[in-house]
C-alpha cells in the first residue's frame, strides 16, 4: 500500500513536471524571429501565425510599412493560447521597437505585459482582438464584430426562410472578437419572431467536439435550421456532423472569414454564407496610425472595418472575391 501511494505521487509529480517542460519547450521554440535595430520599427504579433486571416493582415501591414519607410518584423503564436503568445510579446518588447501591433488572444491575461511595454515607451496598437483595459494602446483597429454578427444573422435568417431554431457553436468564451459576433448575432436574430436562438456551445477548437455537439443538438431540436460556426475548425466539424446526420444543406451554416478552405467549402455548399472581414485594411491602417503617432500627428483611437456577406450567388463578383484571404504574400 505504502509504496503504491508513493508511486502515485511520483507519477503525478512527473506528469506535472512534464507538462511544465512541454510548455517551456513550445514557448522557447516560437520565441525567435523578431529583431531590433533601425530607426523606427514596428513589430506585429498575431494570434495564430499560420492563419490566412493573419497572413493577409501581415502582408498588408508589411507593404504599408515599406511604403512609409519604417522597419517591420512580424511573428505570431503557434496556437491560440495565452501561454504561447505571452513570451512572444515579452521577447519582442525586449528589442524595444518604436511600435508594437498585437492581436491579444485573451481580453485580460496579457494586460500586465502590455502595460509594462507601453510604460517603457513603445506605442501599442491593438489589431483584430483587444483587451478590456481601455488604457492599453493608442489605437484599436478591428472589424466591427457586433455589426458583423448582425450581418451574419440577417444572411442566415434569409437562408432559413426566417423560421426554425438556430445555434451558435463557438471556440471558447472570453475572446472579444467572437463574443461580440455572438452578441450581434443574437441581437440580429431577435428581429425574427419565427427564429429561436438555442444557448451557445463551445468546442475548444476541436472539430470532433463540434461534430458531436451539432448532432446532439439535432436530436434535441429537430427544427434546427441554422448554425453559426465560430471559426474554420468548428465549421469543418459542423459540416461533418451534418453530413453524417444526413442534414447537409437542410441546416444552413454561416461562418466568419474567407479562408481558402472556407471558400472551397462555400463552393461545395457545406457552408452557405461566409462573413468576410477585411484583414488587409486592418493591417494597413494599423501601420498608418502608428506612423502618425511617431510623427506626432493625431491618432484615431478606434477604427471599425467593414464586413461583407459572401454566398454562392455573389462569390464570383470581383468586388467580393477581393475579400478572400491569402495563404501567402
Amino acid at each position, binding site marked *: 500500500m505504502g509504496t*503504491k501511494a508513493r*508511486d502515485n505521487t511520483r*507519477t503525478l509529480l*512527473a*506528469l506535472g513536471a*512534464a507538462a511544465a*517542460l*512541454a510548455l517551456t*519547450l*513550445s514557448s522557447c521554440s516560437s520565441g525567435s524571429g523578431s529583431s531590433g535595430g533601425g530607426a523606427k520599427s514596428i513589430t506585429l504579433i498575431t494570434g495564430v*501565425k*499560420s492563419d*490566412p486571416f493573419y497572413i493577409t493582415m501581415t502582408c498588408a501591414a508589411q507593404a504599408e510599412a515599406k511604403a512609409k519607410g519604417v522597419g517591420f518584423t512580424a511573428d505570431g503564436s*503557434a*496556437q491560440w493560447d495565452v501561454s504561447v503568445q505571452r513570451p512572444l510579446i515579452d521577447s519582442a518588447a525586449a528589442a524595444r521597437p518604436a511600435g508594437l501591433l498585437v492581436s491579444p488572444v485573451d481580453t485580460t491575461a496579457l494586460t500586465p505585459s502590455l502595460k509594462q511595454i507601453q510604460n517603457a515607451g513603445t506605442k501599442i496598437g491593438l489589431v483584430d482582438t483587444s483587451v478590456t483595459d481601455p488604457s492599453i494602446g493608442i489605437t484599436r483597429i478591428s472589424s466591427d464584430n457586433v455589426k458583423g454578427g448582425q450581418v451574419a444573422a440577417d444572411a442566415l435568417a434569409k437562408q432559413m426562410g426566417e423560421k426554425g431554431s438556430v445555434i451558435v457553436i463557438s471556440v471558447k468564451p472570453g475572446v472579444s472578437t467572437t463574443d461580440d459576433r455572438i452578441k450581434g448575432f443574437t441581437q440580429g436574430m431577435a428581429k425574427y419572431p419565427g427564429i429561436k436562438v438555442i*444557448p451557445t*456551445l*463551445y468546442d*475548444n*477548437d*476541436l*472539430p*470532433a467536439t463540434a*461534430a*458531436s*455537439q451539432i*448532432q*446532439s*443538438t*439535432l*436530436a*434535441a431540436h429537430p427544427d434546427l435550421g441554422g448554425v453559426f460556426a465560430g471559426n474554420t*475548425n468548428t465549421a*469543418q*466539424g459542423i459540416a*461533418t*456532423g451534418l*453530413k*453524417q*446526420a444526413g442534414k447537409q444543406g437542410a441546416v444552413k451554416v454561416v461562418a466568419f472569414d474567407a479562408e*481558402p*478552405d472556407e471558400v*472551397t467549402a462555400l463552393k461545395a455548399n457545406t457552408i452557405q454564407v461566409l462573413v468576410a472581414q477585411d484583414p488587409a485594411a486592418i493591417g494597413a491602417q494599423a501601420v498608418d496610425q502608428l506612423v502618425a503617432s511617431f510623427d506626432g500627428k493625431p491618432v484615431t483611437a478606434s477604427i471599425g472595418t467593414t464586413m461583407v456577406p459572401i454566398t454562392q450567388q455573389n462569390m464570383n463578383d470581383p468586388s467580393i472575391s477581393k475579400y478572400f484571404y491569402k*495563404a501567402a504574400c
Partner: protein
Amino acid sequence: MTDRQLPEWVRRTLRRNEAWTFAILVVLVAYFSISAPGKFFTVYDITQIAVNAAIYLVLGVGMTYVIITAGIDLSIGSMLVLAAVAAGEYTIHHGGAGAGWGTVAVSIVIALAVGAAWGALQGALVATGKIPALIVTLGGLGAALGIAEIATGGQDPAGAAAAHLQNSLGYGKVLGIPWLVVLAAVVTVIFGLLLGGTRFGTHTFAIGSNPAAARRAGIPVGRHLVKVYALMGLLSGLGAVMWLASYGTTSIAGHSTDNLKVITAVVLGGTSLFGGRGSVLGTVIGVFIPAVLTTGLIVVGVQQYWQDVAVGTVLVGAVYVDQMRKQTRERI
C-alpha cells in the same frame, strides 16, 4: 453483502471489473432516456454517439495494451496528425479530392506505416529501460506534431482526402450502420480477443505485472514492448484514415487533447495505470461514458460547463469505487 443469496453467475459478473462501470453507463442512459423521452436513445442518437466514439475507440484499444504494460502513450494525437498529413500529402500529389481507388489504397497504407513506424521507434526507446514511457511519448508528441507542421507550414492542406474515401468509409453505411462504426467494432473484437486469449495478450499482462519476473520467465520484454507501442502507432494511423474519411482534413490543431480523452476512457474502463490489469471490453464502456454524458447533457439542455464537471466527477468516482473494491478483495 448478501453475496451468498445470489446465484453464482450474478456473483461472477459482479466480480468482473467492468460490471460497475457498465452499471454507471446503464444508469446514465436510463436517466437521459427518461429525462428526454423520444430524443435520447433513439436510433439516430445511438448512431451519432457511436460514430463520434469510433476513432477514440480504436485509439483506446491500443492504449489499453500500452497501459496494461504499465506504460503510457501521450503522443497518439500527434501520431494521428503525422499519419494523416503523410497520407494527405500523398493524396494531394496523386489526384487530390478526385483521386482514384489506387491512391486511396496507397494513402491508407502510408498512414498505417507512418503510425506503426513512429510507434515502433518510441517502443524501442521505451524498451531500453533508460527513458520512462511518459518522457519518450511526450517527446514524441512534440516531435511528430512538429514534423507534420513543417511538412504543411502549419496549415491544413486542401484536398487531403479523396472523395472516394469520404463517401465510403466516412459517410457510407452497411445495413444502416456507418462503416466507421463497423471498422471500430472489428478492430475492438480482434484486439479484445488477442488480449484475452493469446500468448501475445498473456505476455502483455505479465510485463505490466512484473517486468523482472516476465524477463526471468523467458518473455522477450523489450521486443514485446516495441510490438505494443507499434500497435498503438498502427491504430493511430488507422485513426488518421478514419479522421480523413469523416472530416476530409488533417486538422493539425485539433488533436491536442486526444491523449487525455483516450487515457480517461481506458482508466474509466478499469485498466490499472500501474499495469497488469485491464480489458478491451472495459475500454469500450470507458469510451462510451463520456460520449453518452456529453450528448445526453446537450439533449437535456444542461449548460455546457457542467459537462466537463460531470465527466471529471464520473472519472474520479469510477476509479475510487474500483480501488475500494480491489482493497476489499485483497483483504479477503
